[in-house]
């Protein structure tokens, strides 16, 4: 018994010595009242090679929110400068979005930004990356009074379209972007939002060559891109030229490359239904419907051909076409060789369209 008592005494002395001398092992103080989580960061180009970073503080408590902006040369430096200007400590653990200005992506590339996010284990790999055209800080300042939970609703929108790939928008998170960036035979893409007259709206998809933004697909091109690659689904696909709206468009794509790797046949099978038609054709007539299908088909083929041509010219491959050269029993091709091949490749686009005709409605003509 004496031995045990002695031992307990010794141990308690060691413990007291350690704790009292301030050798406490946990240095970080995570008391919730003293912290303010950051929900998003907006990055844009500052003066003299610096980066301008803004966010809304405090993002979660009920106090009045304000936009804070700092210019820094290193991204993580912003933690210090924000902390010095705000009474609560900032934490990145709840970050949900990273908003990057178009200029930054176009001129400097975003590899360094991505690497900063990837190295911090606190930052989730699920944060959304978004490209913004226009002055996002100004938009925040103008809009914050009218719409207090601006950041949250923006996040909710992205989340909604990400789940189950509901079409409409390209939504890309950090993990997906990183994979597209670092995998051979693929180039990343991001959604683009434009700020116009105090409103923010989806504009299209930004295509990257490595980490540099080179092109923004808008309107019809972007719709086709959603069909071909990103979501394989669109709720509505208006084709203004033919005065028709296709609804619930589902697509399946198939890629065939010939042995000499000079021609690629890209087949898109589409299932859809006509939801609106303002043209002159008699769609109840099977022959007319067949003709009309062909019109849609050639229209889509032409548009897609142009889109793919553009990608080839820009030397970007967001559709990951190169992956189709991989085979289970052969050595993967060198990426440089693929890039050379891709530039020259003859890519044939083929659409097979399956359309349910207008139902429960009469055509205009018949009523006359």
């Amino acid at each position: 018994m004496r031995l045990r008592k002695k031992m307990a005494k010794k141990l308690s002395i060691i413990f007291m010595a350690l704790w009292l001398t301030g050798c406490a092992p946990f240095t970080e103080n995570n008391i919730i009242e003293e912290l303010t989580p950051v929900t998003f960061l907006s990055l844009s180009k500052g003066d003299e090679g610096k980066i301008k970073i803004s966010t809304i503080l405090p993002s979660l408590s009920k106090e009045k929110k304000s936009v804070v902006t700092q210019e820094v040369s290193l991204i993580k430096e912003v933690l210090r400068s924000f902390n010095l200007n705000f009474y609560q400590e900032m934490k990145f653990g709840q970050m949900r979005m990273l908003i990057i200005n178009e200029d930054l992506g176009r001129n400097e590339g975003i590899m360094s930004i991505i690497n900063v996010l990837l190295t911090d284990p606190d930052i989730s790999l699920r944060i959304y990356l978004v490209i913004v055209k226009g002055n996002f800080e100004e938009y925040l300042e103008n809009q914050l009074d009218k719409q207090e939970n601006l950041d949250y609703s923006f996040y909710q929108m992205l989340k909604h379209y990400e789940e189950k790939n509901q079409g409409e928008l390209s939504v890309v998170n950090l993990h997906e972007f990183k994979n597209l960036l670092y995998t051979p035979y693929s180039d990343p893409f991001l959604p683009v939002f434009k700020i116009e007259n105090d409103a923010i709206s989806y504009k299209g998809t930004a295509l990257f060559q490595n980490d540099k933004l080179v092109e923004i697909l808008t309107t019809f091109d972007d719709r086709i891109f959603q069909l071909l690659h990103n979501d394989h689904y669109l709720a509505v696909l208006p084709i203004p030229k033919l005065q028709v709206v296709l609804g619930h468009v589902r697509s399946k794509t198939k890629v065939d490359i010939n042995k000499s790797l000079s021609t690629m046949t890209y087949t898109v099978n589409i299932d859809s239904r006509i939801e609106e038609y303002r043209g002159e054709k008699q769609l109840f007539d099977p022959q007319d419907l067949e003709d009309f299908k062909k019109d849609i088909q050639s229209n889509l083929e032409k548009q897609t051909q142009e889109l793919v041509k553009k990608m080839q010219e820009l030397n970007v491959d967001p559709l990951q076409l190169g992956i189709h050269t991989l085979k289970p029993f052969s050595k993967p091709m060198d990426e440089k060789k693929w890039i050379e091949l891709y530039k020259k490749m003859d890519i044939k686009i083929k659409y097979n369209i399956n359309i349910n005709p207008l139902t429960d409605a009469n055509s205009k003509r018949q009523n006359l």
Partner: protein
Amino acid sequence: MEALQLFNKNETYNGFYVMLMVNRLQMLYFFLIMPRFLIHSYMIWVIIAVGILSQLNILLLSKWFLTRISSEGYNGFVQLFGKKLVRLLSFIGLFFILLKLFVIMLGFSEMVQIFMFPATDSNWLIFFIMLSCLYVAWKGVEKTIRFVVISFLCTFWMFLFFAFFFFPPIAQLSDLYPIIPMELSVNSWKGIFLILSSFSGPEFLVFLGPWFKTNNKTFRYLSYGNALTVIEYVFLYMASLFYFGSNYLSKSQFPVVTMARYFQNPVIERIDMVMLSLELFNIVFAVSIFLLLFYGASKIASGKMERPPSRVGFLFSVFIILIGMILVNEWIWKSDEKQVILLNLQILAGSLSYLVVPITMIVVMKIKGVNKHETTKEDG
């Protein structure tokens, strides 16, 4: 005051416990970093092949367990090798145990530090983990073996979570191409030894023979444990190929934990933290077993086998290990280049011990003429 009952033998454990121990001792640390070194998709076949090799080892082990000598512990070994050789061998064994202890503990505490307590000194984490290991080991070999059930229940289901990565959009079949090796490099060899080393662990069960109740079913149980490990390795490795793609795989320092960070749940956001904490049960189990083995081996090596285990002696050996760990952490583990040396050393040592121990036991048994049939233990 009661004497410390470290190596008492009141009850024996059946094949089920052996199965859990085989499996958990193979899932310690290397499986968490394995994908970083394997990289190529054809390594899946290598995992399976080494798994089959490990199965052969398991066969040898089960033969050993079926002999009466295996249940006699120290005396059995003396009968086989002679007193002096046993002392020498246990002295050599000390280094193997130490190396394994260092790699498991330092590797795991580094992970905890990076993902959970970035501002905490990793020496403190080592200290706290060692405290809990000391507590478990203090209860003796029997209770520690029983602890494997808790450790198994806390951790075995985790690999099922990774099924999430087997579905599109994350999984693409092309991530697994090419499925046969097109060229072999030095790294591939290193990969083979790494896998072999991660399969190692069950050879230490040889020294726990007295606590096992072995019968004809033991081989079956041992194989189940090994098979579960093969499934877990292949599952995790395939998931990491899908998630990272083989090009990025080598860049991720802790691939499996990084993958766990991608899980999302509306209630618990950082599932990886919960998983890491539960994994700690497994580490505590393994380290406690190794602490006991270390103390036992050091007693044999110093020729004090006849004396009962003493508190001071056990505490002293744990203290020495703790100090050793902290020193190795400061001098070797914290710098990446030197860490690689230690990892390579463990890769070699693990493979070596796993290959050599079971074969030696069987060969020596054959030479000494210990016949399986004459000495088979009665069931129960």
